[in-house]
Each structure stands twice: as structure tokens, then as C-alpha cells.
């Protein structure tokens, strides 16, 4: 084995430029690779370099563990070669070339293997997390159904007793008015429970041709019962029909959740606008005479408190909520996101927390049934043109 007189403390060592070294006391992957390369390059042709190769292999794994990206490996090798050339100008190119490919191969191979394993385990983690989430949702569904049942029992007693108590008062007496308020509040509670049951429902969706224009008023009627009278609900339809392929309850859930979210962003007063507008997507692949993909844009906007930019990034995350404990499950918007995605649509949100345009707007874009499909649905008829 040769001994390099220029570097008496560590004859094998060819130090890397400062910038690539880590501040921790343990040598970095790059530094260790540099050392291995130097040791291999300086070895005599008949020296056993198995130890160095094993270390290079381990280094490949370590690089994956430390999250060093693949292209960084090439750079690391390049820097190590340069450092080696600087430290040992006497080394001939032939010697370097013949010796140093092997540790590089070992390291790359180990890196590739470990990288694939890491990907696999990340993928499994992701799948498990989703499974965990759906189990949580299922548990919440069961819980909601149980709570709904108990609440309806309690409301049954409240409503019944209140009605009978009302008999003790004449029309116009304060007691009569008070009992009416008890009943009104009970019916609002009943509607809330019904909404909770909608979430708890685990039956699979049954898709059919649904006209969103006709669905909205029904949802508004249901919502009206549970929203404060001081919250204004406006529906603007800029289209006559908007037929999509979905389970009607999915459309109801989308609108209901977005409106509840909007109402919760208000201090008792405010306005919620539901708008249905056409949206034509004339992308290049449709240009050649084919029919453009038609979409409908369903937007729900409010003039409430708005969503902060930090919260905006997480609005669709399950269990994320800014509402007071017990006021929101953090599931409403993630349910909406799930439904919209399953219908082949997309959802976007914009929000301002101050200024005149304060408020939030959710825009849901859903694919419309093609005209001929919708007509077929109505007329049981022939294919127009085709």
C-alpha cells in the first residue's frame, strides 16, 4: 500500500471542499464516500478492497435514509473525484478510472434497492393512513346514527310534553308563545339530527340523471329550517337545466355542507348565494369538430368572516376544523371534496378575511351529461345525428 507523504495524519484522506461538509461530528455521506474512493484509488492493484466496497454499499443505504436525492449521488461522485485529484496529483488517470468505478457501482446499487424499498413502504403507509381514515369515518357514522336515535327519542318527549303543556294556555297568552318557541327549537333540532343521519348513511350512492337546478330549491327548503332567519339564502340559476350523473343525495350533501360552512362563518347576519352558471371547456382536443366538454359551475359564496390563508390550505382535510369544539366534525368539506372528485369534477376555494369583498367562495365544477344523453333520458329516443 502506498503512503502519501503530503498528508501525514491520515494518508487515505482527501478532504472535500468545505461547502459540502456537514457540521455534525459524524462524517457526512459525501465525506465517507470521498474517503472510500481515496482508499480504493490509492490501493495497490492486488490489494483486497472488499471492505471498502461493503462500506460503499452501506453508504448507498445511508444516502436513502438521509433523504439524499438520486441526482445528488452523481454530484457526490464528481466532487469526490475532484477532491481526490487535488489531494493526489501524482495519481494517474488510468489508476483512478480502473479502481473507482466499483465503489460507485456498489453505492448506486444499494441506493437503488433502498430507494425502491422506501417508496414501497411510503406507499403502504399512505394506503394504511387512508384505510385508517375511512375506518374513523365509519366509526363516526355509527356514532352519529346512535346519537341521532337517542336525540330523536329525547325530542319525542320534549315535543309531546310541550304540546300538552300548550293546552294549559289560551291563544295570545305568553305561556302559549313560549311553548311555541320550545316546539320550534325542537323542530330545528330534529332537522339537525336528520342532517347528521345523512352523513351517517353508509348505503352506496345510486347514480342517475339529476337536474341540479331542481335539486337546489329542495336543499334550500331543508336548510331554511335550521338557519337563522337573519341569514339570507339566494339562488341564482343562469341555466335552465343542469343535468349531471349522480346520486341526488350527493348533490344535496355538496350544497348542504357548503351552505352550513358559509352560515357558520357569519355572526348571525349575512347572505349566502348559490349560483349555477354554464362553463364551456373548449380544450384543443375538442376543436376538431367534436363536441366540447360541457361543465356546470356551482358556486356557494358568503360574506362571512373568510378563511385565513393557513386554514385555506387545509379546508378539505378530514377532521380539520376551526369551529368551536362540538360545533363541527371537520368532515363537511372533506365529504364535499370526496363527492366532487368521485363525480369527476373539481372544487376550488377563494377567500378574503378583510376588506369590502370579505367572504368565501367555493366553486364546484361538475361534468354535465352530454345533450344527447340527457335527451335520450327524456325521450327514450334515437341518437340525434349519429
Amino acid at each position, binding site marked *: 500500500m502506498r503512503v502519501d507523504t503530503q498528508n501525514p495524519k491520515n494518508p487515505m484522506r482527501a478532504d472535500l471542499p468545505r461547502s459540502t461538509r456537514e457540521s455534525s461530528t459524524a462524517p457526512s455521506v459525501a465525506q465517507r464516500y470521498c474517503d472510500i474512493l481515496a482508499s480504493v484509488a490509492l490501493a495497490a492493484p492486488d490489494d483486497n478492497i472488499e471492505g471498502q466496497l461493503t462500506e460503499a454499499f452501506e453508504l448507498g443505504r445511508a444516502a436513502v435514509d438521509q433523504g439524499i436525492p438520486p441526482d445528488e449521488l452523481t454530484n457526490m461522485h464528481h466532487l469526490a473525484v475532484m477532491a481526490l485529484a487535488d489531494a493526489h496529483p501524482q495519481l494517474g488517470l488510468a489508476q483512478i478510472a480502473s479502481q473507482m468505478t466499483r465503489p460507485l457501482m456498489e453505492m448506486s446499487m444499494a441506493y437503488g434497492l433502498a430507494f425502491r424499498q422506501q417508496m414501497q413502504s411510503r406507499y403502504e403507509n399512505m394506503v394504511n393512513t387512508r384505510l385508517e381514515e375511512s375506518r374513523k369515518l365509519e366509526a363516526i357514522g355509527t356514532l352519529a*346514527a346512535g346519537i*341521532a*336515535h*337517542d*336525540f*330523536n*327519542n*329525547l*325530542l*319525542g*318527549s*320534549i*315535543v*309531546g*310534553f310541550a*304540546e*300538552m303543556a300548550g*293546552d294549559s294556555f289560551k291563544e295570545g297568552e305568553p305561556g302559549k308563545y313560549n311553548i311555541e318557541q320550545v*316546539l320550534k327549537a*325542537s323542530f330545528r333540532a*330534529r332537522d339537525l339530527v336528520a342532517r347528521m*343521519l345523512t352523513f351517517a348513511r353508509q*348505503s352506496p350512492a345510486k347514480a342517475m340523471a339529476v337536474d341540479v337546478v331542481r335539486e337546489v330549491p329542495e336543499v334550500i327548503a331543508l336548510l331554511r329550517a335550521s338557519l337563522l332567519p337573519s341569514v339570507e339564502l339566494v339562488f341564482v340559476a343562469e341555466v335552465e337545466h343542469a343535468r349531471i350523473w349522480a346520486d341526488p343525495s350527493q348533490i344535496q350533501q355538496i350544497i348542504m355542507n357548503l351552505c352550513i360552512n358559509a352560515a357558520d362563518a357569519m355572526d348571525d347576519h349575512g347572505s349566502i348565494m348559490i349560483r349555477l352558471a354554464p362553463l364551456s371547456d373548449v380544450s384543443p382536443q375538442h376543436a376538431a369538430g367534436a363536441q366540447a366538454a360541457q361543465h356546470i359551475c356551482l358556486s356557494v359564496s358568503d360574506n362571512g368572516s373568510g378563511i385565513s390563508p393557513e386554514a385555506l390550505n387545509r379546508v378539505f382535510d378530514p377532521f380539520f376544523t376551526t369551529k368551536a369544539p362540538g360545533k363541527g366534525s371537520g368532515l363537511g368539506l372533506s365529504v364535499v371534496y370526496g363527492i366532487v372528485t368521485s363525480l369527476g369534477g373539481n372544487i376550488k376555494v377563494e377567500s378574503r378575511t378583510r376588506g369590502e369583498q370579505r367572504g368565501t367562495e367555493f366553486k364546484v365544477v361538475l361534468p354535465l351529461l352530454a345533450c344527447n344523453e340527457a335527451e335520450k333520458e327524456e325521450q327514450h329516443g334515437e341518437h340525434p345525428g349519429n
Partner: protein
Amino acid sequence: MANILVIDDDEQFRGMLVQMLTLDAHHVSIATDGEMGLNMLERSTPDLIITDILMPKLDGIDFILELARRHISVPVIAVSGGRRSISADFNLESATLLGVKATLSKPFVREDLRRALVKALA
């Protein structure tokens, strides 16, 4: 005026229902679950049974099925605090075959109850 057997495990709700029916001049007896209801039916036959669906011991659905098995043809009003349909495999149509004349969802108002009674006793 009718002889009515009320079966419900919720004491407060049962009390309310008994009072409501009594105010309308019906004669009411009570049971706290399906099993107790069946025992009472061995001693006397009411004109009408109002039963809850979700109950401990013998629940409403098993109770109604048991009535059919024993050929007891008393009209039944099924009351439920849960889903609209009584259960996934036991819908209103099949329930009708077994003597369920009407269903009521909790909470209901007095008029709903009166309508259900008229329908069941018709």
C-alpha cells in the same frame, strides 16, 4: 276510544305517549320491551299496539315477527327514532303484511299520532 298497548324502553317518552293517549280518552297499558309485551298479550288482547323499534331484549322488529308467528292479528303502529325505513331488509311493504299499519318517526306531533291511530284502527 281504544285499548292500546304501548311498548317503549324510554321511560320519559313512554310517559309522554301514555299521557297523550289518555288525554284523547284511550285506555293504555305499557311494556318496557318486546318480551314483556308478548307476556302481556298472553293475558289480554288490545285493540292496537304501538311499539318502538330499537329496544333491549326483544326489539320491535323481532316483536312484530313474533306476533305474526303466533297469529296475533292486532294492528301495529311502529315508532322509530332512527332511520325512515324500519330496517334495510324490512321495509314498510313487508311490515304491512305483518300487521304494521302505520309508522311514526320520533319526534312527532299530536296530529301525526292521531292520524296514525285513525289509519291503524280503520
